[in-house]
């Protein structure tokens, strides 16, 4: 292992190490501690300028309740869920099929198609902004509905997910598919009965990753929806920032609430998350 494992070092060195790590962590997360602390304050504290001292009285329950009662935060959260879950499911479905096709079949244009998906994945998505918005306004009348976001996320994320799934399926032994083929199993049944069960780990990793990507999206939420009935929590939070300017305790609580689902997902499915993120970081 590199650096040298500390187990081999003196207890003193280990203690020093723990000290250094703790302090680094504290500094690293300082902005978050600040916001968490503020979300527990009373408005009085803030207007008296007590931004950084210990809160004079804790208002955790009040503040977090107020976020939901004084704003459409609940609605925003619901919208985010309604956008994220179908988008993740759709992306996985579409890209697993495409990834399987690209990994398992030889046909003309395979590599070109694969390259197109990769390239599309890297496109600065702002380029797509005007046409995609026009598309939803004029052609597919879904502008300002959650479905516009669902559809677009599925389409755009397909680039990355197809790359991911294709490479994953490519790593599976060809023999698994060929054995089934020799036994007369139809191609679509092979996909369903052989490949799908085998890609479960990849699906889990992608699902977690895509959940946070889509949940955290802000740009498209800004471009494709605008009313409270469709707005996800990221854009909602930004809209509330105007309304809550003086109420930092609500702003902080709202920010933490908006971040909570992806944090929960991350900690619950950390292994999959990191497996997904670091795919390709190990081998060349």
């Amino acid at each position, binding site marked *: 292992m590199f650096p040298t494992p500390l187990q081999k070092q003196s207890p003193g060195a280990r203690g020093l190490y723990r000290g250094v790590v703790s302090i680094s962590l504290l500094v690293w997360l300082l902005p978050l501690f600040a916001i968490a602390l503020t979300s527990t304050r009373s408005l009085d504290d803030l*207007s008296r300028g007590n931004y950084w001292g210990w809160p004079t009285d804790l208002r955790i329950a009040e503040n977090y309740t107020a976020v939901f009662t004084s704003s459409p935060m609940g609605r925003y959260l619901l919208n985010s869920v309604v956008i994220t879950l179908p988008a993740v499911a759709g992306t996985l479905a579409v890209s697993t099929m495409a990834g399987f096709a690209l990994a398992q079949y030889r046909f003309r244009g395979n590599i070109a198609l694969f390259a197109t998906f990769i390239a599309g994945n890297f496109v600065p998505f702002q380029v797509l902004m005007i046409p995609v*918005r*026009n*598309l939803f*306004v*004029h*052609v*597919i*009348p879904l*502008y*300002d509905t959650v479905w516009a976001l669902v559809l677009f996320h599925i389409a755009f994320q397909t680039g990355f997910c197809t790359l991911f799934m294709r490479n994953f399926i490519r790593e599976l032994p060809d023999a698994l598919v060929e054995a089934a083929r020799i036994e007369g199993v139809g191609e679509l049944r092979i996909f369903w009965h052989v490949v799908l069960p085998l890609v479960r780990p990849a699906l889990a990793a992608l699902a977690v990753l895509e959940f946070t990507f889509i949940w955290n999206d802000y740009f498209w939420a*800004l471009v494709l929806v*605008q*009313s*409270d009935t469709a707005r996800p929590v990221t854009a909602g939070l930004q*809209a509330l920032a*105007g*309304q809550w*300017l*003086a109420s930092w305790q609500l702003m902080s609580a709202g920010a933490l609430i908006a971040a909570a689902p992806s944090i929960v997902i991350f900690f619950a499915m950390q292994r999959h998350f990191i497996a997904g993120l670091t795919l390709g970081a190990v081998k060349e």
Partner: protein
Amino acid sequence: MHLTRTLAAAAVVSGLLAAPVAAGTIVFNTDTSDPQPKAAFEAVVKQFEAENPGVTVKMNVYDHESYKSSIRNWLTSAPPDVALWYSGARMRQFVTPGLLEDVSALFTPETRVQFSPKVLDTVTVDDKQFGVPYSYYQWGLFARTDLLQKAGVGDIKTWDDLLGACDKLRAAGIEPVDLGSKDLWPTAGWFDYIDLRLNGYEFHTQLTEGRVSWQDPKVRDVFAHWKQLLDHQCFIKNHTSLSWQESQSLLYQGKAGMMLIGNFITQGIPADAAANIGFMTFPTITAGLPQTEEAPIESINIPTGAKNKADAMKLLAFMMRADVQTTVNKTLRQLPANNQAQVSDDRYLKAGAAQLGTAVHLTQFLDRDTSEDLATIAMKGFQEFMVKPERLDAVLANIERARKRIYASN
């Protein structure tokens, strides 16, 4: 884009066939997402529906900021029957391509007199009316009377009074002028007022309509006056990183003396500060100019593509009525456009009504009087000028370049 257009047409046609809007339904788009406007229009709709049995109003409430861009989408694709919008140049840009309906029929001799010509002008294009004004509000200096008194500042009637006030407040350890320029537009209030007081309405209108160069000596004169304010250290220091909402707390906490802003600020004044915050008209610079004030006027319009124009006209006629405007503006805490409606009992509104009553001309504010494109560039220039006054030449050259581009293509 041909494909888009064709498909769009197909989509619209199929939309018409698939979902015929029930007779008696009005689709009403508004930007009333903030609590007070929301309450006001919910009440309006309720009363209208009560008075017109069989007509139902379906409201689509949008957020104030995004409304400005989204209106372009639905006006051209799936227009509602009625929409809230602004008067003046902002309205004209939709009238020119034929997106808004002529509603002159509503302005009969009896109703016409209920609106002052200066208000009516803002919804009139080629002698035809394209909207019904229902509300407006005044701009001016909202000032901490207690602090001004403490610092020995008297009435601020003239430019020199203003400069003097800055010095005295500064000496008393108070930031003279509160400003949040992160949103850019608050700077335009200063530009508009200095220009209006210095060069007058005619010149200002020529400028906002793109007919005068931004490098005109008269414009430079505006900035020369503005520079005096900077030299007298009138403005708070960190205005570039504050939004107008963030900046207002300085006023309430007694750290700043005054703020040039619209009447909407009064919605947020805390009870304990209200007694000490007064309203005054922007001081005079050039004596003898006809009084002009900033008074953004809101109106209600019918898109040309509306499906239920008959009922839409009813709603406009309803919004035109003095009694309705009285109630709406009471909740909005703004001034009714109908001069027979009653101004609600609020000292800021009373002051505003008085100020605007004597005004000869009204302007809509820079970003509504000129193209949004030019306004954005100009307001960024104002902000830059306030931080780096030495860059004035470059700033003006940049705005002028934009003016030439924008008004040449029209």
